[in-house]
């Protein structure tokens, strides 16, 4: 009944006036806007996203399809990849395909898998973590053991076995990555929830007669926003790298669909004669994961000015 009502906001009180006070999130956003590193990373991520979305347009402009083999122009007489030229800006791969177009198409897969699997992992992780932390007791015991089990699985081994059994596909990759990522989120969220639920305002909500679901929605979740945003931003590059790993091992996206992971796998046999073949997909992967990581770190600094710096954050994530 009360569940269907929106969260109590200024709008609920009929107030459409200018916001005088800024929320902690608004303040953090303000800090990020003045952070050059974060700004640069955001711009790079946006550009990559635009390029990924406009991949067919880029292919059209260049005049090369992502899977088309240019056996005449794209390969040397010896049948080796061609270095970057005016026709093939990033050079070609071993089958005479345009690397630029393939790298741009690869960004689609990386971003799609990275973002969707991170968001799913976040959703599951927040749900499990909040339930475990808020209700404690048996709920916590059961969910906590599930978290422990998932965290103790050797994820690469389990992922490889699973993909071998079910067969590689994009959807399976997303599901596998989400499955192995939610537990870490859940653990963090559970800890945060445990500390939030001890705050007096939760007790105040109880004394008012607020239902558990409304307390979670109105009082717990908004207080989890900061750690969840930070962790999700840091989860995206991890998922991108995870997806590339799976594809590199031939378990993610099936060729000939271009993907940074399987491009790197194809390039391993040619790196001595065709540096561009391994450089561009590798650089793309490095740049996007780095951008997300640095951005995540900036967001964290912005949300918690007392937090520790980049190096500590990176070390903790591994």
């Amino acid at each position: 009944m009360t569940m269907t009502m929106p969260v109590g906001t200024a709008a609920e009180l009929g107030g459409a006036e200018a916001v005088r006070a800024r929320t902690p999130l608004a303040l953090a956003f303000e800090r990020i806007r003045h952070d050059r590193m974060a700004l640069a990373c955001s711009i790079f991520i946006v550009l990559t996203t635009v390029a990924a979305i406009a991949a067919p347009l880029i292919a059209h402009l260049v005049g090369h399809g992502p899977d088309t083999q240019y056996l005449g122009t794209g390969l040397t007489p010896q049948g080796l990849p061609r270095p970057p030229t005016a026709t093939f800006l990033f050079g070609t791969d071993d089958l005479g395909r345009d690397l630029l177009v393939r790298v741009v198409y690869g960004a689609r897969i990386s971003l799609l898998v990275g973002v969707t699997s991170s968001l799913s992992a976040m959703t599951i992780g927040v749900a499990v973590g909040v339930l475990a932390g808020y209700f404690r007791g048996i709920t916590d015991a059961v969910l906590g053991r599930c978290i422990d089990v998932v965290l103790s699985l050797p994820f690469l081994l389990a992922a490889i076995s699973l993909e071998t059994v079910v067969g590689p596909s994009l959807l399976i990759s997303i599901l596998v990555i989400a499955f192995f990522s939610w537990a870490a989120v859940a653990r963090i969220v559970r800890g945060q929830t445990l500390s939030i639920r001890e705050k007096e305002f939760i007790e105040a909500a109880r004394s008012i007669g607020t239902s558990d679901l409304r307390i979670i929605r109105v009082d717990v979740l908004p207080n989890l926003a900061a750690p969840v945003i930070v962790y999700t931003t840091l989860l995206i590059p991890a998922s991108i790298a995870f997806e590339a790993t799976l594809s590199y091992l031939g378990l993610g996206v099936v060729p000939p669909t271009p993907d940074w992971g399987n491009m790197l796998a194809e390039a391993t046999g040619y790196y001595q004669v065709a540096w561009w073949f391994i450089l561009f997909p590798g650089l793309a992967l490095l740049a996007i994961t780095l951008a997300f990581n640095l951005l995540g770190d900036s967001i964290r600094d912005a949300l918690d000015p007392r937090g520790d710096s980049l190096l500590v954050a990176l070390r903790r994530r591994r």
Partner: protein
Amino acid sequence: MSEGSPAPSGRPELLRLTDVTKYFPVGRSLVQPRGAATIRAVDGISLTVEPGQTLGIVGETGCGKSTLARCIARLYPLTSGQVVFDGLDITAMSRRDLRPVRRDLQMVFQDPFSSLNGRRRVGSIIAEPLIVHKAVPRTGLRARVQQLMEMVGLNPEHYNRFPAEFSGGQRQRIGIARALAINPKLLICDEPVSALDVSIQAQIINLLADLQAELHVGYVFIAHDLAVVEHVSDQVAVMYLGKIVETGRAEAIYQAPRHHYTAALLAAASVPDPDRAELRQAAALSGELPSPADPPSGCRFRTRCPAAQQLCSEQEPPLASTNGNADHQVACHFPLDRTEAMR
């Protein structure tokens, strides 16, 4: 609901506690599911509050005052005993059944910082009970919130601000506005001023007193400072280690305390009253509060009592009326004499 139910004494009652206990197991583990020890935070407390009246509960930190408050508000399940509120036995009510009861039974918390969600705007915080209990139609929420803010002395234009923009005293006013939003019959104030500056304390106490006169709301007012309680209370109960050691009309307690603990507390309080200055002669309390997990035998206060004798360690004194005054009860084998106390 009726305005209090007739009590055995014939006076209307808003709240009646009968022999309420709350034990917390400590050191619970797989091997010891019942816990290694039991903290007897509240150990057999009976009291009543009349409609529109104030019961002050005083005691040292750790004597179980806040636990008692949470037992009355049914934020904790009781270990045993009975809580009757407004003629309704709420002792074993489920959270669902308690919801309508909470319309009439609200609470103000000690910490004005942690008791307000910093991520919500003040208007939304104050409106929460109105929304939860659907007390006011949506369109009327803002008007009601602003009316409440004005009532507790806040600028109603500030409803769109965040708690962090207010001072401690103002934040406590927000907490009071929230608790009074749905016109409760009883307000449980759990040390509402102990986290505030002394100058602000008086403002909040005066506000609470004014609101009581205006709204005819009953208070259970908890504090560790007797002087604070004196201003607002009709009845006072002094707690020591989970038990009431002395209870009576406020004047009686302050003019002629009968329990040595009450006398010691009064002596420790800074009371600017020359008539009572002599009470300061009473020995200041020495020693620490004994552990509620392992209270002393017999009278719980005997370890720190200047008048303790053999009997005190053997028999627990019952809370009984003294001097033929049914209202003034004390749990002591050797209570202070009225004349002695006034000497």
